[in-house]
């Protein structure tokens, strides 16, 4: 069926709008008040989202070219790698964490493994040198201080 992706987008939009309206009605009013209050504007936005989503559901565009499953998995794994990177950054320190993460990304973008390791380390140390040593930006300090 053509336009399936757009229909899914529209349905997601409607659900988001419903969630917004529901959460907006739950907003606790405070003792400071203005005529419009904190709920009205979000509800108007939710209505705009709902109308646009309904239009997208009824008049979807042509199906986009989704990549084969392997490539979607590739992106999923890259996301996992980035999440792990974000979590390990304060624990392992900038240089070590970044070397691992950029090695992974360089490898997955089609570099042979050994060259990817070298490139990952060079990228990490290079960024550390430029941004921390020269420009003085504070980067995550691990147990070894870098």
């Amino acid at each position, binding site marked *: 069926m053509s336009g399936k*992706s*757009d229909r899914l*987008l529209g349905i997601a*939009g409607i659900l*988001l709008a419903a969630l*917004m309206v529901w*959460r*907006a009605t739950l*907003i*606790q*009013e*405070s003792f*400071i008040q*203005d*005529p*419009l209050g*904190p709920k009205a*504007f*979000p509800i108007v*936005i*939710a209505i*705009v*989202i709902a*109308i*646009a989503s309904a*239009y*997208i559901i009824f008049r979807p*565009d042509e199906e*986009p*070219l*989704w*990549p084969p499953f392997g*490539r979607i998995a*590739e*992106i999923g794994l*890259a*996301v996992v790698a*980035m*999440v792990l990177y*974000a*979590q390990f*950054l*304060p624990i392992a320190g900038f240089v070590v964490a*970044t070397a691992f*993460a*950029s090695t992974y*990304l*360089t490898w*997955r*973008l*089609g*570099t042979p493994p050994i060259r990817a390791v070298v*490139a990952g380390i060079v*990228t990490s140390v*290079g*960024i550390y040198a430029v*941004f921390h040593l020269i420009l003085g*930006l*504070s980067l*995550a300090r691990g147990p070894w201080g870098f």
Partner: protein
Amino acid sequence: MDSLSHLADGFSVALTFQNLGLALLGCFLGTIIGALPGLGPSNGVAILIPLVFSLGLPATPALILLTSVYYGAMYGGRISSILLNIPGDEPALMTTLDGYPMARKGQAGEALALSGLASFFGAFFATWGLVFLAPQLVKVALLFGTAEYFALFVLAFATLGGLTSRNQAKSAFAAALGLAIAMVGVDGQTGVPRFTFGEVHLYDGIDFLVAIVGLFALSEVFIFLEHRGDDQAGGKVKLGRIIPPMEMINKVWGTMSRSTVLGFIAGVLPGAGASLGSFIAYSIEKKLSDKNGTFGTGDPRGVAAPEAGNNAAAGGALVPMLALGVPGSGTTAVLLAMLLALNITPGPLLFQNNPDVVWGLIAALFIANFMLLALNIPMVSIFVRILTIPTNYLMPAVAMISFVGIYGISGSTFDLMVMIAFGVLGWILRKLDVPLVPIILGVLLGDQMEKNLRRTMTISDGDLWALVASPLSIGLWTLAVVGFILPILVGRYFRPKIADRPEMEGADPD
């Protein structure tokens, strides 16, 4: 002339040793960013904002650095268009049409020099346009009350999809999504938390820099992972001579002048950025001058027109951004983010209260222009060499620098996770052809938009008619409605056919 004396003051701000150095650095970095496929003015500036912010530069030098990057990226986009037939960014799309054929004919160096000259011409005169037009717009803007501002924001969102919009429902969806994101956090008027789901990190709201870097920069990394190995750049081309013969330059003066005017107008109008500027300049020039059918086969005028057009539009787009605080295109939205990050709110009050910032910035644009001309004509071979850095080494570095910038602002892992989420969202929305720029603008302006609405209601004690009480606000509302509906009727005549190609999905907005 008032503007000229302000401009002279601006030059005294910009002409310090430090500021000149920053402008030169910005021009150099910007040209590289523009030249590299996958990095354009929007995501290039987006990555640099958090870094500049973390470095703690004062407002004016930071602005000078980043706007030099912006202008530089506008120049740089043409390099890969001409040499590789791959636009470095979306405005450079039209330059491929005649630039690449010129390169195939062995005139690559001439095409680069000519387009550099056209870029300079367009940007230089557009900056003069900015000098004279922005203060006029400021005079109008000083008449604006809260109701007019609210209408102005509606106008900005309604026209943001632009004349080239493929699907207005998706533009509206994107704008509303951005506004919804801006609602997260503690409500500024009454102090109650909204949409925070009890998460303490969300009480401050979602930092717009996190959203921008995620949507623009990280999603680009995902696009590259998706298309890994698909595209191979066209073969090497010889540069040839890098100084075009005088007769070639003489042939394009008319082209450059016409394209500059068209581009500037396209840039000033809401909802039309540099891409439309280059497109209109090229198509009109083709209609006017293409007597022998040489356009598309390496006609120098076909190179000069889009380059003068897009650089003039880049200057023109700064007019509404600086004078009203409402950007009309992707890159100016990112520049607005930069101003907000530096705690500067653009608009008429900026011209009155901080003229040194505004005019220092405009003076810096002039200086950057001359630097770019100097960098781009004799030193173009350096940038050509940088193009040969393969993306498999480049994109991981881009991703890592994005992380460095965001981590530098807050030192919070939570922000990094939010940024990754925005990266994934950006990738999905790009696949679905939902424009990202309205989302960014929504995140940036949502707060002010709501504030103006609620103040209007407070003043009128809840009377909704106060929104359309003045002729000025009625005019703005009318423009907004027309601006939203018009593209549905005439959009397909204005859209470059080439922009409908599926491979442009990953294109950098503006």
